[in-house]
Structures are given as structure tokens and as C-alpha cells.
């Protein structure tokens, strides 16, 4: 199943923030984690992650620091800030509203609960 581009773009921010909130990480590992969690369904052009990371950094939701990879190459590690944690909470509230709304709609028309998080 291919996920719509706009939807990927919308989910990218909470996804990246939440992954980094789990533990500080770098670009390649973040993408690998997305792939793993979505079983490869949720993919976007790798390069597009970096502009997003930098935007989140500029918004103060992430901080970045240059570190070293095990092989000794310079690598940029991102970690969550307090504002980032707050942003995750907000995003979470928004997403559950959205999914709950869709769920109620689709259940009424006789379907099975798709999103499964009706509060």
C-alpha cells in the first residue's frame, strides 16, 4: 500500500519528534526506525528528512550536536528539547481527535473500526 504524499508530510513531524524523544538519534537511524516501525510502508525520499530536521531545530523542538560515528566520521545527533516534548503532546492530541473522528464516521457507515483508537 502506497501512502499519500501529503499524509506522509503531515505525519513526518510527530514521527520524527517521537523517535528522537525515545533516544537521541541521527538522520540515517531515524529513517531506519521509521521503516522498521511501518514495516516499510511509510517511506519518503531520504533526503527530505534533513530539511525537516533543520526546520525542527530552528523551531527549537530539537537540538543538534556534532558527534562521532563508531567509524570516527562526523555525525550530527539530534535530541528532543522541552518545547519538543510539549509539541509531541499537542500533536498527539490532534492526531487522536482526527483518528477518532474518522473512526466514528466509518463505523457508522457499517465498517469495522479502522483506526481503532475511539476514546
Amino acid at each position, binding site marked *: 500500500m502506497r501512502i499519500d504524499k501529503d499524509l506522509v508530510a503531515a505525519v513526518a513531524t510527530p514521527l520524527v519528534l517521537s523517535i528522537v524523544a525515545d533516544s537521541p538519534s541521527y538522520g540515517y537511524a531515524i529513517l531506519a526506525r521509521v521503516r522498521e516501525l511501518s514495516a516499510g510502508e511509510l517511506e519518503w525520499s531520504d533526503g*527530505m528528512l534533513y530539511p525537516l530536521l*533543520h526546520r525542527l531545530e530552528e523551531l527549537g523542538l530539537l537540538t543538534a550536536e556534532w558527534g562521532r560515528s563508531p567509524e570516527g566520521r562526523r555525525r550530527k545527533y539530534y535530541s528532543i528539547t522541552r518545547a519538543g516534548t510539549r509539541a509531541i503532546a499537542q500533536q498527539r492530541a490532534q492526531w487522536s481527535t482526527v483518528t477518532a473522528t474518522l473512526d466514528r464516521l466509518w463505523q457508522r457507515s457499517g465498517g469495522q473500526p479502522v483506526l481503532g483508537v475511539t476514546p
Partner: protein
Amino acid sequence: MSAVLETRIAEWRAQLRVPTAITAEEAEELEGHLRDEAAVLLAAGLDEDEAFLIAIRRLGAIDAISAEFARTNSARLWKQLVLPAPTTPDSRSALTGLWWALGIGLVAAASFQLLLGSVIGWPGATTGPGTPAAYGLLTLMPVAALTIWLLVRRRDEASGRRRVLLALTPILLLTIGLALGPLGPRIAGGEWFALVALHAPIAAWLSVGLADVGAAWRDVPRRMDFVRFTGELAIYFTLLALGGGVLFGLTSAIVAPLAPAALPWLAQVGLGSCAVVAVPVSAWLVTAKQSIIENLAPVLARIFLPLVALVCLGAAALYLVGGAQRGFDREFMIVFDVLLVLVLGLVLYNLSARGTGRATGFFDIAGLLAIFGALVLDTMLLLDLIDRVGDYGWTANRVAALGLNLLLVVVLAVAAALSALQLGGRTPIAALERWLMSTLPAYSIWAAVVVLVLPLVFGTG
């Protein structure tokens, strides 16, 4: 990882440097990603070419990434004038250049103030009008600072000692000539003050040129580069002077009620020193920003070339129809010199921005018309002056102005002929460039004649 992959990554990285929306740090981060991906693919058993190609494909098109970066931060489309963080070797060497510029500038400013203070007087305690030689030496200071800064910047290049010797000779000769010549105590002043102050730096500009191009001073393209450098330097200096002027005005307004006695100090020592330091700093700005922002001189040249062409042709037509209502004032000569210099500069900077092909463009025609109009006007002025030369007699001022005028007329007339020929397809544009470049030292040499020889001729009278 091995050589094949390294070459591929290096090629890709070079491509990445072109879209300026991506900074060096971001490129490094993307490269790290590429290497991680390639390593995983290699471990999965792909060969290097395959691993690289797939990693590149997954990363996505560079254009799209840089467009996305630009959208994230639209400010970066305005190419950055601020200094990058001193993490890359490039920016570190740029910073070193700035420190040198400041250091050399401050030493020059200190010498400037000492000379000014001892010859003409400290603020509020004028000791005398000074001598024309002192004015000449004062104006040499910033030029010397610039020369030394250029020499320091290029100290690692080959033929270093020869370059230093070559570059310092004109300034040293001028300094000796001014200090020991008749302009010191024997000629007390009058017209010489402005004459020397104006011509000494032009003569000394030879040093700046030699410091910049070094042993390649015969080379036409290198001379052209130096012309570009000079143009950008003038623009940066003007911008700094504008900013400095505003700051000085504000400071004076604030200080005046608090400590009125400080104002002359602020003007002479503060503003004077800043002006001297601003010269090497402008040069540093030109070199540090060379690759970052558009060169401005050709842009200005293209804006003003058609306008100046209109003015010159209009004025020439007016004169031909109505004649001059009054005879040309002899002081008018300077105005015409400035006009010719302006036309020459516009033609030169227009030329500096164009390719080597045949010129049939709008700006080349405008340039030819501007030269033509300026020459017609100038010829009429010269005829008018020669007609009545007996009324005036020769003074140093008139000889200096007339000499420059003749020089410019010759240069521009040949340039006009070459322009016309190449518009007609007879000669390549390179001929025009070669002519304008080969005549460059003539201005400095004439200025040196004014500073060093004319006092010997007129000073004794």
C-alpha cells in the same frame, strides 16, 4: 570504503556545492547519510557502483532537497553576507584575512594620525597648514596598507620575494620623491595640496596592482581581474563610508551636548582612523565575498551605461546646435576629465562582465555611443581651450588636467575605433580588452609625473 565509492561520493559532493541553498554542514550530513546507506548495501552483498546508485536514488534529487532546504529557511536565498562559523578551513582562512586587514589597517591609521598630528596639528591645536608633500604622504598610507595586506595574503605563492620587491617599489619611490622633493618646505601650497593628494594615491595604485597580480602583470586576464577587484573595492568602501558617515553623525549628535570638546577628536582621530582601516577591510570583503555575492560593478555599469550614453549624446547635440553660451571655464576641464573617466569605467566594467564572443549587444552599442558623445564634447572643449591658451598660461593644475584629458582621449578614441570594428565583425572583442588593459599603467604613470616631475618644473618659478 574503497576508491570507486570515494570518487563517486566526491563527484556527488561537488555537485552538491552548486546549489547554494545547501550549506557545507548540511552537505556533510547528507554525505554521512549516503555513506551509512552505502555501507548497509555493501554489507548486503551489492558491489560499490550498485550500492552508490541505490543510495543516491533513495536520497532523492539534489534539486528537490536544496529547494526544500530553501523553503525551510528562505533567508538563505539572500546569499549570506555574515561570516560562516569558523569550523571549515575556508572560513578560518577568511577570518585570518580579516585579522590581518584590521592589524595592518590600524598600524596605517596610527602612522596616519602621527603624521597628521605632527605636521598639521592635533584637534584643536593646529600647528600649521602643513605641506603638499605631507598631504601626499597621508593619502599614501591607506594605499600602502592595502598593498601590504595583499602581499601578506599572497605570501605563500611562488615568486614571493620578487613580488614584494616589485610591489613596494612604486610606493617607496613616491614616498622618497615626496619627502625629498620640492613639495616639502619649498612649495608652500596653493593648488598643490589638492593636486598631490589626488594624484599620489593614483600613482601608488601601481603598487596595489603589482601586489595583486605579481609576476603575471603582463597577463591581460589578470589585469582584468585586478580591474574587477578595484571596482568592487570602491563599492565596498563607499558602502562602509556611508554607514560610517551615518554612525559618525549620530555619535556627534549624541556627544555634542555632553562633551563638545571631544567632537574635533572624534572627527580627526576617530573618523580619520576608521577611513584608513576601512581600505584593507574593504579589500578583505571583496576577496572573502568574491564567490558569495554577485559582483556589483558590472551591474551598476550596465544600469548607467545607456543613461550616460544619452547624456553625452544629448550634450554633444546641444553644443553642436547652439554652441556654448559662454566659453568653457578652465576649471571645467576637471569636469570633463571626470566624465571621461566615468565613460571609461563604464565601458571597462561592461566589458569585464561579458563573454569572449562577438559583441553586438545593446550594451556594446550603448558603450560605443557613450564614448562617441564624450569624445565629441571633449574635442570641443580642447579646441576651445587651445584657442585661448594664451589668455591662461600654464600652471601645474592645468597641465595635470590637460595631460589626463589627452591620455583619456587617446585611450577612448582607440577604444571607440576597436568597438566599432568589432561591432562590424572585423576584430575580436579581445582586441578592445587588450587595448584597455595595456593602457592601465599609463594613468598611474601620469599621476606619478604630476606628483614627482611637475613640482620640479613649476615649483622653482
